């Protein structure tokens, strides 16, 4: 132990509060261990589950308590979303003005559920309604959200998540009351997509852009060229996991070809506004046991 006169003028080992090299090394090694463990798939899942069981309900509670603040519309949304919103709101405004005398928060909520019910009917699957209670910060460079439905509501990993407008993402993992959802705009997300007008298949990748940037569609058939305005829907996976078929993803906005690998990539604008996600639905098999009402494929609540 190194001894000497410290700043306070007493004879004692060096300032006990200064960072000790041994601790620094131990902690850095602990970080490295964590990273290595997590690279081996699934080792840390129990830990994530345990933390999720505690923080999931807490996130739901905070989200519910602060909803009056966080639902202040317009100003605080992402800039890119605001332009779209203005156009959409103007169109909606006249319609809503008639409703507004009788409407309140509940009615708006009902309209949201109506939209979701319609989605359930359109895509022909049963959905469990859920609210987004937490958004991963951009500082994490990932686009994930927490929703307030978990395994007790019948939600499992690798289920499709939709909103009234279209595809949202897929469930990564669940706790008993919450689930973590990977959004399709995340850089790691790949969705099998089909161009509605030509039935050509391809892959829709997240742009990795943290603002609501476009998705990239690459068609398997190099000779096919999607045209701007085409709708892209999911093509569906085996056993409906992770994506069911026929859910609208977005609209082709522009097509550009790469000279290097002679392939064509289309930019797809997602239908869902990921800056303002609130009510979503998790697609579940019909007849799923759930602790809440499930919107069935025929639009009825079960």
């Amino acid at each position, binding site marked *: 132990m190194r001894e000497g006169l410290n700043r306070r003028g007493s004879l004692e080992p060096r300032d006990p509060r200064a960072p000790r090299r041994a601790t620094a090394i131990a902690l850095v090694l602990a970080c490295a*261990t964590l990273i290595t463990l*997590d690279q081996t798939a699934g080792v840390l899942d129990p830990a994530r589950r345990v933390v999720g069981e505690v923080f999931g309900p807490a996130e739901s509670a905070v989200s519910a308590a602060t909803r009056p603040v*966080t639902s202040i519309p317009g100003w605080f949304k992402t*800039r890119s979303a605001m332009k779209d919103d203005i156009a959409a709101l103007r169109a909606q405004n006249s319609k809503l003005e008639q409703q507004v005398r009788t409407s309140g928060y509940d009615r708006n909520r009902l309209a949201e559920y109506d939209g979701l019910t319609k989605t359930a009917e359109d895509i022909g699957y049963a959905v469990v309604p859920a609210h987004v209670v937490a958004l991963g*910060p951009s500082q994490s460079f990932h686009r994930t959200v927490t929703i307030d439905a978990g395994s007790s509501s019948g939600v499992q990993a690798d289920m499709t998540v939709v909103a009234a407008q279209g595809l949202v993402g897929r469930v990564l993992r669940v706790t008993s009351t919450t689930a973590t959802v990977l959004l399709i705009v995340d850089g790691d997300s790949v969705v099998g997509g089909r161009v509605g007008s030509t039935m050509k298949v391809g892959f829709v990748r997240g742009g990795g852009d943290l603002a609501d940037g476009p998705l990239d569609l690459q068609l398997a058939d190099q000779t096919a060229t999607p045209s701007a305005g085409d709708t892209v829907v999911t093509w569906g996976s085996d056993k409906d996991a992770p994506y069911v078929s026929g859910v609208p993803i977005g609209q082709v906005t522009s097509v550009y070809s790469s000279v290097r690998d002679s392939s064509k990539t289309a930019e797809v604008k997602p239908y869902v506004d990921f800056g303002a996600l609130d009510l979503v639905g998790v697609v579940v098999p019909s007849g799923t046991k759930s602790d809440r009402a499930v919107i069935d494929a025929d639009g009825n609540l079960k």
Partner: protein
Amino acid sequence: MNARLWTVCALLVAVALLLQVSLFSAFAWDGVVPDLVLMVVVAGALSRGGQFGMVLGFAAGVLLDLAPPADHVAGRWALALLVAGYVAGRVRQDTDRPSATAVVATVAACSFVATSVYALAGLVLRDPAVGFGEVVKVIGVGLVWDVLLTPLVLPPLLALFARLEPQRAR
């Protein structure tokens, strides 16, 4: 280290994390939120030194790595906040009671360092598929957020840590 201090720290970190993902996400600028957990770590390191800062940073980082909706490789925030705690601890070593300017500068430096370390770890691990420009933008916006919130968040935190301090021999 006494149990009361660690209980308070655990509470502070948990509250900061919850506000960060569930409240501030609604006010985010392109998804970038103020890094409240980082501020707790900086406050801890400023009032109790680098040793404490490192341990607190590591623990808070592990929580950030595991709590939903996180999906990145665990250990990245732990490493980033550990470094932030160390950096803030160095500031405390140099000045016993940091001035307001020093506190803001420390938060800015730690915010920059932590997000950079996190992003670099991601580059090495090929975890995020995000471009360089995007990373720089996120670091910049995050730094502005953190500096803006420092005058509101840091003084109460520092006062709280000072109250928890056992009588110091001076």
